[in-house]
């Protein structure tokens, strides 16, 4: 009985706080993406042909985000029937966008006008009970090009 109460409390806490954190995070992501729109992030390997040479420097951004208890429970249920695990999809989406934003912020601090050859690296540091994915870490890195003055 005590176990059940603890379980339901955790679910409720996870649902409430997780939802609040996610909404807030998405709001901040969208606002910052708008702000940094003028720095294009390009995944291509070869530089565009341009007459002015630029300075190049490595920039990177990383983030570790955890999923809440409620969503992990939902994902466990989803495992039984199969299909899209939406609760994890939003987790990795948030993590990737946040990592790219942090990389862009670093590029902006350097005065770069574009970020080139962007790579994303994803893995999980922390594994919860029974090896369930608890949190995801994303590292985004690329080359920031700054125009010569």
């Amino acid at each position, binding site marked *: 009985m005590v176990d059940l109460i603890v379980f339901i409390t*955790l679910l409720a*806490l*996870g649902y409430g*706080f*997780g939802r609040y*954190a*996610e909404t807030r*995070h998405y709001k901040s992501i969208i606002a910052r993406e708008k702000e940094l729109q003028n720095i294009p992030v390009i995944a291509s*390997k070869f*530089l565009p042909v*341009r007459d002015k*040479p*630029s300075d*190049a*420097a*490595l920039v*990177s951004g*990383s*983030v*570790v*985000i*955890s*999923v*809440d*208890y409620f*969503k*992990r429970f939902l994902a466990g249920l989803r495992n039984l029937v199969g299909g899209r695990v939406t609760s994890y999809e939003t987790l990795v989406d948030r993590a990737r966008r*946040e990592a790219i934003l942090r990389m862009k912020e670093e590029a902006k601090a350097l005065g770069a006008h574009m970020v*080139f*050859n962007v*790579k994303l*690296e994803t*893995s*999980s*540091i*922390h*594994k*919860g009970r029974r090896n369930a994915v*608890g*949190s995801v*870490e994303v*590292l985004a*890195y*690329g*080359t920031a*090009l700054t125009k*010569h003055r």
Partner: protein
Amino acid sequence: MVVTNIEIIPGKRIVEHLGLVQGSSVRAKHVGRDIMASFKNIFGGELKGYTELLQESREEAMDRMIQQAEAVGANAVLNVRFSTSSVAAGAAELFAYGTAVVLE
């Protein structure tokens, strides 16, 4: 030391290739951080302690790679790649590698 993950530096010529240089670092956070992280696993959200951990180990891996590049007499590392893996719960390995070159 110029470090980039593209293969050429615009406006500069590569004089000599010196081969692969690499650096890696395995780090863990103290137990307090791990306990905080397990709380965050209930509420969801960013694990700041682990983000910090990742950043520190990335910087250290880069530093080691740059040291190696300096030791072979390079002045730039091109085509840098990062690779992450988890060695144990709460510990992260970060591995950086690239090509050491001499730019004119």
